């Protein structure tokens, strides 16, 4: 019983075809609303948490405890004059923020969310290769950032885009290799080891305990992917003004901003699912979804703490970290996973 069937059950009087079509549409809308609400909550959480870390109070003017601040900000950004640079490359410039945002929402559609009481399983889309799909989508998002950098026709934006490319290329490979190690280990227990859902449901111990190295590599790579300090190369606000998003205003800028927080949230959910048991936990057949969100939010807070306490690393050291340290380590991790699975039969 999944949420799709639950919605269909309500709509079944419309017949099979129309009922399922409507159920899918409603489910997609619920997903987009869920992602938006979570992101708004996350940005609010970030601003409050940052304020606590920095001995400030944070937003407290709009709504109770500043809870409506984000809505006020969004309205402000919508009302702003949209300024297009004169010498832009029109299509890439205009399309880029949407690639980032839609890539993000699409990736959320393939995550397994676990159960939530009467709604059953909340997973939106089932796929036997969801791991491949999620990471393929994650690889699309930087394309939006690069297009933004090139399309802006601005040297700061271009350099931000180049830094983004250098960063993403050097961390993509270690990230995929450490995920591959989990796929290898899961393959001993499930025939569909490329499906994130079956990887999580068939695990005996959380993979973070079996593969601490993989967890470390994946976490660092996700910091780089989400692009916050110490790896905020795309923005580099003290060097490149605002990196690839320098020339953006209004809602298009907001989409990049949301993309940053969305990637942090997505990365935290992925780490929670792959390494610390995801929706598994006590009473998980009833409240697996809550477990997942709680684990995700704890990881989000850890990410914020790193963000707020680290200076930016230099770009050449960043690339070195990716190729010279993380890549060999993740290879060793992959071999270890193979040995554990085939040799010891774990």
């Amino acid at each position, binding site marked *: 019983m999944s949420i799709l069937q639950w919605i269909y059950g309500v709509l079944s009087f419309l017949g099979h075809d129309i009922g399922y079509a409507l159920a899918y549409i409603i489910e997609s809308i619920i997903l987009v609303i869920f992602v938006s609400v979570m992101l708004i909550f996350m940005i609010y959480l970030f601003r409050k948490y*940052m304020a606590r*870390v*920095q*001995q*400030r109070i944070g937003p407290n003017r709009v709504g109770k405890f500043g809870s409506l601040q984000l809505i006020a900000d969004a309205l402000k950004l919508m009302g702003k004059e949209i300024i297009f640079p004169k010498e832009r490359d029109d299509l890439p410039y205009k399309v880029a923020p949407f690639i980032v945002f839609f890539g993000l929402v699409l990736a959320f559609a393939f995550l397994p969310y676990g159960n939530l009481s009467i709604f059953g399983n909340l997973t939106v889309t089932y796929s036997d290769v969801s791991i491949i799909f999620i990471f393929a989508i994650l690889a699309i998002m930087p394309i939006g950032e690069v297009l933004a950098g090139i399309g802006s026709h601005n*040297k*700061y934006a271009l*350099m931000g885009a180049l830094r983004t490319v250098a960063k993403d290329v050097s961390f993509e490979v270690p990230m995929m290799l450490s995920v591959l190690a989990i796929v290898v280990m899961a393959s001993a227990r499930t025939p569909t080891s490329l499906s994130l859902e079956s990887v999580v449901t068939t695990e005996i111990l959380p993979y973070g305990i079996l593969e601490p190295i993989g967890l470390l590599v994946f976490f660092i790579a996700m910091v780089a992917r989400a692009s916050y*300090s*110490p790896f*905020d190369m795309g923005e*580099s*606000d*003290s*060097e490149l*003004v605002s990196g690839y998003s320098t020339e953006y205003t209004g809602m298009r800028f907001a989409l990049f901003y949301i993309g940053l927080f969305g990637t942090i949230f997505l990365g935290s959910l992925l780490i929670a699912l792959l390494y610390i048991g995801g929706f598994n936990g006590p009473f998980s057949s009833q409240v697996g979804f809550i477990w997942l969100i709680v684990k995700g939010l704890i990881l989000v807070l850890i990410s914020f703490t790193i963000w*707020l*306490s*680290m*200076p*930016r*690393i*230099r*770009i*050449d*050291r960043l690339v070195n970290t990716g190729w010279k340290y993380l890549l060999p380590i993740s290879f060793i991790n992959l071999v270890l996973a193979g040995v554990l699975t085939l040799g010891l039969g774990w």
Partner: protein
Amino acid sequence: MSDPWIELNIGPQHPSMHGVLRLKAKLDGEIIKELEPVIGYLHRNAEKLCEMGYYCDNLVYFDRMDYVGAMNMEVGYLEAAEKILGVPPPDRAKWIRVIIAELSRIAAHLVWAGAYGLDLGMLTPFFYCFAEREKILTIFTEACGSRQETNYMSIGGVYQDFNDKIIEEIKDFLATFPKKLEEIYNLYVKNDVFLSRTKGIGVLSKEVAISYGVTGPMLRASGVEYDVRKAEPYLFYDKVNFEIPISHKGDNLARFLVRFEEMRQSLKIIKQGLEKLPEGPYFNPKAKKSMMIRMRGEGEYYARTESSKGEFGVYIVADGGVKPYRVRVRSPTFKNLSILPVLSKDVMLADMIAISGSIDLVFGEIDR
């Protein structure tokens, strides 16, 4: 044959240019090949304006030079102006000036310490530094009613005497600040990424530093033990015990450590100043308010003082009138900035930002 390098115009509107510095950079990828600082975007003609104001009026232009540590600028101007006019301040005023100037030095270094974190992409220490600076500004508010452009000192003394409340506030500050300072210090030096961004970056040798006229913490970080407070003591700096922190490394980290050690030494000076603060008048009776615009001076005098940025010199030529004939300022940051193209040759863009941050640029003083 066209130029193979990217020309990048950094500033004057740029998040890490500390005001309005403009840098014309030529980049080979991320590596800086040529760098040319362009200044003058904050020029306010302060030196010329000084010729049009009475001696007592001109102090406000000096407040607006190094606006993060304004009291040191006032000390610099008054050292020269009082010699010209022949109205030396009484002892109590001198001690008050020492205390206030050192508080101001700490305030200026705190701004630098916070902004340096921002230059390196570190958001949090900035707020810790400003929370502490706020306490100093509260003391200034108590002393003269204003926070930043204080205009506290006046010719022949200070504008208001220290009352018990100020002394209490300074004592509170002395009691709480050392712990907070260590906290801020640890936020930086216990961070490996910070060390990797500063250690061995932007090494300035002793010889180059001297030949470019670099002074202040930058010079002392390169291993030259030169501090005007020791070399040519003004006010009562010869009557207090303090050390000149020096380092021989000459890199960004050395400049960072020297400035933090200076703050600790300033605390020592303030403590001794409070102990030695005598009773008595706080201004010279010759410099009463009614006399202010009638004071005449003749001759020329060059006073040098140690501001938070380096050697701050004020040269006044007087022709016997009620206004100075010519005022000329030796700005330490201007000389220190001239080292930036030298240090930034063949370094990466990110390192150039780290180096320019470590110089401690304040544009009010460079452009005057």
